[in-house]
């Protein structure tokens, strides 16, 4: 079984993100790392943790809600997050993220995500049992 991971993929004006893992939760954690990857390539220290919760009618909308919850915390706290832990029960997500305040000299933030979108949105289990979670981020 492939190890968990993430990547970005091309979109006309913005950027697509994809995370995968052995479980749905792991795919969501990896997608969150890909979201951070849109903004910065720098190492991020786990100085502070933030907890969020979200709900949705299906797992795809839940991915959008999760990513938008991270975008919101990044914006209002002016933080970047480099580690994530997710648990999902009956389409209810509890997430913890660890990170540090944005330092422009250290993180050299590129495009700030404006929102996760429903475009190219896909959460699915592959034939080999791994989960993948992906969508386009508006930057």
């Amino acid at each position, binding site marked *: 079984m492939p190890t968990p991971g993430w990547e*970005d*993929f*091309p*979109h*006309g*004006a*913005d*950027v*697509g993100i994809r995370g995968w893992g052995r479980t749905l939760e792991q795919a969501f954690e990896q997608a969150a790392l890909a979201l951070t990857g849109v*903004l910065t*390539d720098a190492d991020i220290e786990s100085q502070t943790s933030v907890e969020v919760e979200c709900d949705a*009618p299906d797992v795809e*909308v839940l991915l*959008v*809600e999760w990513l*938008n919850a991270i*975008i*919101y915390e*990044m*914006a*209002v706290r*002016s933080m*970047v997050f480099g580690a994530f832990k997710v648990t999902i029960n009956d389409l209810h997500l509890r997430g913890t993220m660890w990170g540090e*305040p*944005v*330092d*422009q000299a250290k*993180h*050299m*933030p*590129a*495009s*700030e995500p*404006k*929102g*996760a*979108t*429903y*475009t190219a*949105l896909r959460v699915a289990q592959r034939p080999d049992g791994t989960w993948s979670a992906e969508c*386009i981020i*508006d*930057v």
Partner: protein
Amino acid sequence: MDPSRFTRLDPTAWQIEPTGAMRVPGIIYADEGLIRDMDEKVYEQTANVATLPGIVKAIYVMPDAHWGYGFPIGGVAAFDADEGGVISAGGVGFDVSCGVRTMLTGLGASDITPVQKELTDSLYQQVPVGLGSKGAIVLDPLETDAMLKGGACWAIEHGWGETRDLDRIEEHGQMAGAEPSCVSDRAKERQRREMGTLGSGNHYLEVQAVSEIFDKKAADAYGLKQDDVVVTIHCGSRGLGHQIGTEFLREMLSVAEAAGIMLPDRELACAPIKSEVGQRYLGAMRAAVNCALANREIIGHYARRVFGHFFPEAELTLLFDVSHNTCKVEAHKTDGASKPLFVHRKGATRAFGPNHPDLPEALRKVGQPVLIGGSMGTGSYVLAGTATSEKRSFASACHGAGRAMSRHAALRAWSGRQIIKDLADQGILIRSPSVRGVAEEAPGAYKDVGAVVMAAEAAGLARRVARLRPLICIKG
């Protein structure tokens, strides 16, 4: 896209005939080269918008169109509330009222040269850009609501702008019908420290010089001469607009389903204009328009402050301020009678022609300035609205060059450091918190803005007045 998929109405108008669930045709304005290079997704998204209830006449698509969210970027669609017409959060965009303003400085390019580096550093210091930048303004809840109602007028009341600017801002600087109570606490929280910040992505502040005049009469009316220096600002409603877009998109998904609207794409989520959610979105979206107008007014004030330091005699006057992500109620003629329609412009600029009553006296004879942002290396254009644009596109024109290449591909093709160096060799100074951001916004990642504005002119959407070349670019 394959041109043979269209009915060619004239050299720059390409029609998608209504088939299936499409209620109206789609008309793309472009030359053959731009059509061939245009993303296939534009065709699909144009056809999808044409299926929405209450759409009037056609969906029009501008020459700089590319793949968007539900609506193509560059899409213009008008809806009739009396015919079950809808409002769509995706049709406005995440960055509500993102737009461009250009200010005249009265200086010449040769005035900038001796202080170009210091001026660049000063602008970069004074105008907060990128994530982690902090605005000097912190809003409390009362001030937030006043800003959401007052727009640029609110900024001017606080000393961040000049009253005479208002004539040169759409809606006279203040969008009517804004309802701060329709904006969530989370959206307001996201804006608390973001007033007067530029943001990131394709947003910028540029110092530019007029490099070519195409229409002397219009240029005179606009106050533009060869080599004149102007300041152009491209940004929008920041976190507040993004949060409103995010929240209403989600809410409209279930509303559309409940209203029996078949959505070919979830991103097209919409609500009937005459519905509780539709009205609530209008109130929130209009508040976000005011946020964007206030934001650009404040950044304009910062630019004035910096220029005042280097050039105490210089007076920065506003040429115009346009928004290109909006939905506005406007009277347009359909079947002979004039009717109020809800005109969505997603990545498209309103372009009123000569003699339009909403234009200030000084501009009325030549038409509305239409400000087209190019990429940092290639320059920008000032166009003027034409008499024909009303009939062609509900008085709309293009908004920028439009991307030709994804950020992903741009990162593989270019190095940010090299771009900064190459542009410096051409006399263009770039400042950005991120070299990677510069690579993503590489000049080569954009369409040829010259071809886009030529097509807009040939299609009768707007005519060229002047070309601007960049001298300084502050990039988020």
